[in-house]
């Protein structure tokens, strides 16, 4: 109703132009650096044809539920959701199904059984296992792509001594990345000793504290720090700098790997700040979670869905009629 009045108002003022459909974009938590970047990328993709309103879930499924309920009641044709709790989305899917509202989930993948509840529900994301496989490849590169290992194997025992900074326990990505990175290395013939797995909830500050602890426990034994994401990797670097694992002798703000002291830390996500740290030599590498590509896929899919057009015309490939998988990229400064 309000829209018609607005339209009428606009008609009086400007002559009524066709109003952009307003579509809600639910972000689980705008405090999350990765999601903050991601949201900006999605908004940058929008054009004349679509208007996205970002709604912050503040990391509370209750708040997100309330907002989703309100937007479904507004009869919007489509919801774009980055859920707080991927396990709770079956209620959202049921509700949307009742109201004929289409949904694009992204970044946090609902259970397959929930995705199967409704035809008009889609997922745009990257396969967590894939990111771990790429992270394992970076580690292999680090150790010279040789199962006998190169000089990076500091104690020369032929075994990679690693600590893992894990995201939230039980978090799909955290579980998958932790499991797959180790599995990939083992499958590729590398010997790996996981000195410790510390749960740092994908959070930089938590990771710094966890790293402090790990350094105290394992110290010089640590040959590589594997992090489930960049934020924790950066937290770990902070800790490691304090403990003297990085020494910028010439004080130029960069680590020269040939002449200065450093320790390999590997993240996932490809945050802008992580890219800078790679450039300056503090972060060894990351797996770029191609949020740019995902943002493009989300906006393109959203437009097709709003117009009710056939999604086979999408420029991204669709698996099982519902899934759009975006590939990761390895980033190092080698």
């Amino acid at each position, binding site marked *: 109703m309000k829209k018609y009045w607005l339209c009428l108002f606009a008609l009086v003022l400007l002559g009524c132009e066709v109003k952009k459909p307003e579509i809600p974009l639910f972000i689980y938590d705008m405090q999350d650096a990765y999601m903050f970047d991601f949201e900006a990328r999605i908004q940058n993709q929008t054009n004349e044809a679509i208007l996205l309103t970002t709604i912050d879930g503040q990391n509370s499924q209750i708040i997100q*539920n309330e907002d989703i309920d309100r937007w479904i009641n507004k009869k919007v044709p489509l919801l774009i959701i980055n859920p*707080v709790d991927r*396990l*709770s989305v079956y209620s959202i899917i049921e*509700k949307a199904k009742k109201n004929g509202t289409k949904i694009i989930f992204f970044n946090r993948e609902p259970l397959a059984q*929930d995705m199967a509840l409704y035809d008009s529900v889609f997922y745009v994301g990257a396969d967590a296992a894939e990111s771990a496989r790429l992270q394992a490849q970076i580690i292999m590169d680090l150790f010279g792509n040789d199962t006998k290992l190169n000089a990076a194997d500091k104690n020369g025992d032929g075994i990679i001594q690693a600590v893992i900074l894990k995201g939230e326990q*039980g978090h799909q990505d955290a579980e998958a990345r932790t499991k797959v990175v180790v599995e990939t290395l083992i499958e590729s013939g590398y010997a790996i000793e996981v000195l410790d797995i510390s749960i740092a909830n994908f959070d930089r500050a938590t990771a710094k504290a966890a790293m402090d602890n790990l350094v105290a426990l394992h110290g010089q034994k640590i040959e590589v720090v594997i992090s489930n994401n960049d934020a924790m990797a950066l937290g770990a670097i902070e800790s490691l700098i304090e403990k003297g694992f990085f020494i910028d002798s010439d004080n130029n703000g960069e680590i020269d790997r040939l002449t200065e002291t450093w320790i390999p830390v590997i993240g996932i996500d490809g945050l802008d700040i992580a890219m800078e740290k790679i450039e300056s030599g503090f972060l060894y590498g990351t797996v770029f979670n191609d949020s740019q590509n995902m943002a493009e896929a989300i906006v393109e899919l959203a437009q097709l869905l709003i117009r009710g057009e056939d999604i086979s015309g999408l420029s991204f490939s669709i698996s099982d009629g519902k899934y759009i998988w975006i590939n990761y990229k390895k980033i190092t400064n080698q």
Partner: protein
Amino acid sequence: MINRFKDLSVGRAIFLVTTTIVGVIMLLSTALTYQLIFARTDALIESTSKEINKQVVMNYENYLSNVINTSNSLQKYILDLTKANDTLNLENLFIATINIEKNIENIALFDLSGRLIVSSTNEKIAHDITEKSWFLAARSNVDIHHFSSSHIEDVVIDGTTEVFSVSRSVYYYSEGGQKEGVLLIDIDTRNLKALAIQTNLGSQGHIIITNQGNELIYSSLPECSDEQCESAQIANEIVLGGRLVTLGNLAMFANVNTIKYTRWNIATFINVDDITNTKTDTLYRIIWIFLITVIAIAISSAVFSMRITKPMNRLKEHIHLIQEGDFDTMVNVEGQREVVVLADAFNSMSNRIKGLMQKVLMEQVEKRKTHFIALQNQINPHFLYNTLDSIVWLSENNRNKDVERAIIALSKFFRMSISDQMNTVSLKDEVEHVRNYLLIQQIRYQHTFRFEFDIDEEVENNFVLKLSLQPLVENAIIHGIKPEESFTKIVIRAFQRDSFTIVEVYNEGYGMTQQRIDEIHAMIRGEKESESMGLKNVYQRLRLYYGSQADLYIESELDEYTKVTMKIPIGWEVLI
């Protein structure tokens, strides 16, 4: 419609217009107020209920997240301790955990064949672990924690406690390698209940927890024991969000939300009956105020319009009275100032009309009086001339004796005519007067006629107009005497008939035709130029004095007689 409106009386029009306008305005403002209050109330109910629901959900989330955190910690220790082949410590850890977390009933780790690895209990473990729903669920999706519906503890044989199971696929080390197993944490449902009781949801307010398959996990309402109960059905229907529902005649706000990580739905039913009742009360109150106001306006406009129309109706009736000639009644009204002023003006107008009418009447009377006297005065000179003429004639013939008698009679006659100023005389006096006249005339006409009087005693003292009989007799002499016949008889008769004094003058003359009678009648009534001054004069004086009831008329038969009759109403003298 407009014509019908125009036909309405002022009172009705005022009443209708006032009542309609006030009614419509009141109706609009009432509807608006109602709308405003109710929109606010509804919004308040919704937001309050949603806040309560959030609080409840957060309580449960905190509690259940705690369970997940416990599980996550245990997973890490399982990895560490099994790697160190230290299952004893793991068992101790499990036991310590259930001692700290009082609502945890049991912790157990199984391998994929259902064989127990470590548990916190000494009781005998059931055999068919791999067939338990929590085990199957943990294996169906290895990435997540599974929260089962509440059941009697089934990990041990002869379990008694009502629990819900949290199960998950985990890794552990065995014989140097990582293996998958299933971790089970059984939790007493007491805490779910305790959390429900903590929250005040109002009388009959309750909490329903279901899982994604709409299986009932927990209900704080005793009568809702399975997913078929009404509350569960409503929760299932709402899916997510909230709305107002009626449960067993009570207004409830139902809110459905998810509990993070558990795949459970929680529905809160909050009693808002009081608020909705207040809403209904308010509605009734608003309707009452509306009705009372409209009635009050209707009554006061009716009273007010009556204060205008009642005096106006009295004025209207009064005007009818005046139309019928009643100027004596004064109208006396009370009411609004304008109407009182109008009535006063009306009274003074009617007074003035009355005064004017009386003045006109007086003028008329004066005019008649003048006319009457003039008519009366005509008689004498005429008579005097005729008599004097006769006397001259007598003296020329040396009839001195007759001259003497004639002059005596004339003097008597005149004495009487002059004697009093009254307009009427008794019939007796008038007859005496006529007798003198006849005597004079007999002398003059040398006794060529005879005369007789036949006067009833009862009319002797009745009053007749002065000098009214004499002209009739004079007429009888002039027209009745036949010169060729001696002794024509003139008879003067008087009697009473009904309420009239009838005086007849009869003469045996030539008589006259009916046509001649009609002519004379026409003359004396003034319809035709008069030849006979005498009769006309009498007739006019009769009418002036007695009004229309008095009459003078002639009857005759040719060559037989002529009779002139004077009809005088008794006691009907018009005021002169």
